[in-house]
Structures are given as C-alpha cells and as structure tokens.
C-alpha cells in the first residue's frame, strides 16, 4: 500500500517537474542595455495602484538602483523601465503641478524636492 501510494506520488511529481515552464524560453534582460527607459507610453502600473503605492515603488527603486545597482524595472507585461525618478518625471513633468496638487491636498511633505529638481524648477 505504501509502495503504491509512494510510486503514484513520485510519478505525479516527475510529471509536474517535466511539464512545468522553466522560463528558459524567455529572453533575459542581459540582452538589454545597462539602463533604459524603454516604453514610456504607459505607466508601470495602473493609475489606482500608483496613486496608493507610488511612495513604496519609489522607495524600492531608490534602494535597488542606488545601493544594489539593479536599475531595470520589468512590469508583469514585460515592459522595461529605468529605476529612476527621471523615468517618472519623463511623462509626469508635463504637468508642473502633478506632484504638488495631491501632496498639498493630503498635507504630506516629502523630502524628494530638497535635492531632486521638481517639475516646478526644471521645466522651462
């Protein structure tokens, strides 16, 4: 009885291992350049997600790019972005008040603009 159940479990396990996608068909990010904001036609995530979580995304990006050198963000649908505040501002700086409208409404004072040039200062 133990033998039979064991063999059944083994066969199942092997079947699962054999037929699972091992990701070998994917192309690695190594073929890309070291860092590139590739597709800026759409944001890295949905508007709702970014509204609620952009601070966590930026905090993670900061850690990854400054301290670990992992500069490429890959979205679940395979688009690549440079992990940089410049990537965000590449689009969102079109509206000079983009960051400030919400921050003022929510009465939050992020320290980003102590050093990073905000759209207010950089746009000509």
């Amino acid at each position, binding site marked *: 009885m133990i033998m039979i159940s064991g*063999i059944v479990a083994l066969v199942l396990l092997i079947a699962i291992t054999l037929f699972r996608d091992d*990701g070998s068909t*994917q192309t690695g990010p190594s073929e890309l350049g070291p860092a590139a904001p590739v597709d800026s036609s759409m944001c890295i995530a949905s508007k709702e997600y970014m509204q609620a979580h952009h601070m966590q995304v930026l905090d993670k990006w900061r850690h990854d790019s400054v301290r670990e050198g992992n500069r490429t963000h890959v979205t679940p649908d395979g688009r690549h972005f440079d992990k940089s505040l410049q990537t965000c501002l590449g689009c969102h700086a079109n509206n000079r008040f983009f960051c400030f409208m919400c921050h003022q409404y929510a009465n939050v004072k992020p320290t980003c603009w102590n050093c990073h040039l905000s759209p207010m200062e950089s746009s000509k």
Partner: protein
Amino acid sequence: MNQQRRDFLKKASLGALAGIGAMAGIIPTFALEKTDTSVFSDRPQPGKTRWGMLIDTRNCREGCSECVAACHATHNVPDFGDSKNEVKWIWKSPYEKAFPTSSLQLPSRQLQELDVLTLCNHCAEPPCTKACPTEATFKRWDGIVAMDYHRCIGCRFCMAACPYGSRSFNWQDPRPAISEYSDTYPTRERGVVEKCNFCSERLVKGQQPACVEACPGKAITFGDLNDPASVIRTMLGDNETVQRKPELGTLPSVFYII
C-alpha cells in the same frame, strides 16, 4: 473521517515524502524549485569591474579648467565663491599638495610649478566608507565609492577619514549657489557631504565621465582596471605611473603620469 481514508492519507504522504527523498538522493540536479537565473542577469557582479582613471599631466594644459567646469555644471555643484564653504568634486592642486609624501624631496622647478588634477580616488580600500556610521558612503560593485545622499546625516566622519581631502560639506543650502541647474543629476541639500561619483549616472548610459569628455588635451583616460585589454590597462603597462599617498594602503583607482 473514515478510518480507512485516514490510513490511506497517512501512508500516501509518507510514501510521497520517501519518494521525494529518494529522488533528491538519486538525481542531485533534481530540485523542487527551479531558480530563474534570468532574474539576476542584469545585476552587477561585485569585483567584475573596477573603474579607474589615468591622468596624464603632460597633456593637461596650464590654466585650463574645462573638466572642472564640465563636472561641476553636470552635477549641480554649488559655487559659494569663498574657500570656507567651497564644494568641489574635481580641482587642481599644486604638485607638492597632491603628492606630499612623494619620494622627491627637492623636486625640479617644473614639478614645483605643476598643477595636478585631483579628485576622489575611489580607493579599493576606502577609509571613508569604514568611518561612515550610516553606510551612506559605500563601495559599489564596480569599485566606485558612492554616496547615498538619502542616508547622509552630515557627521563628516568620512571627511576626517579621507586622506585626500576629496569630500566637501554643504554648510549652507547649495541651491542658491548653483548658477544653472542641470536636470541630469539632483542637487544636494544643506548638511550632507558630497564628492565625485565617477559619473556613475553617465556610466549606466554608456557615456564617459564628464571630465573625460570635456578635456581638450585628452589627458584623462577612463576604463576598467580589471580588464587587461582595456585602454587604461594598456597605458598603465606602457607608462610609469604614480598614485597619491600609496603608502597608506588605500589602493587608489586614480593614476597619474607625471
């Protein structure tokens, strides 16, 4: 629960466990979880690259400071106009200031009059990173001694530890002292230490450092010291070079042809 079913489940799970154990023993490469290595491929490998610089003082023109201007404009380095508040990433020093422990006691007149380009040496054994209490300055995977301005608390231990005076402190808000903002790099704020970053923000784009590009005499060579085929390694092999204060054991990545 049916007693028989309970027994079956017990035995089946035992069998499965035994099977997994046997498989792992028989085939060592058999792993339950496959590691997707493609995730790691764009991460830098520590020690693979070591960026370095070779400054040929013979080609460095007297009175020229194009590299300094280019660097400071690129990185929003403030100019307060007085030496107390001075912030500098790259600058020119008299020979005896740059090489105070050089074996030449009475250097030639030519050497005495020589101005040498000095900047952060991006030491392989940096004393500053060991002094930093918050790991705001740290040695990167590619040999660059980087500053994480987000973490700097302004204690200036690193400035005391650096034997080359390569670090500057922002005693005041630097923004009013920046004539024109460069949008390729952030500014700093009051109370942080700053220094040369070997243009790491340009290196990721495949560009040479700003000072290398700006030099009209092509006196600065930048490259990978760990790559025996690189231009900088060839030049280091062909010329006699010196480093600043080599006796300290900091192993600078900046070399000079005097």
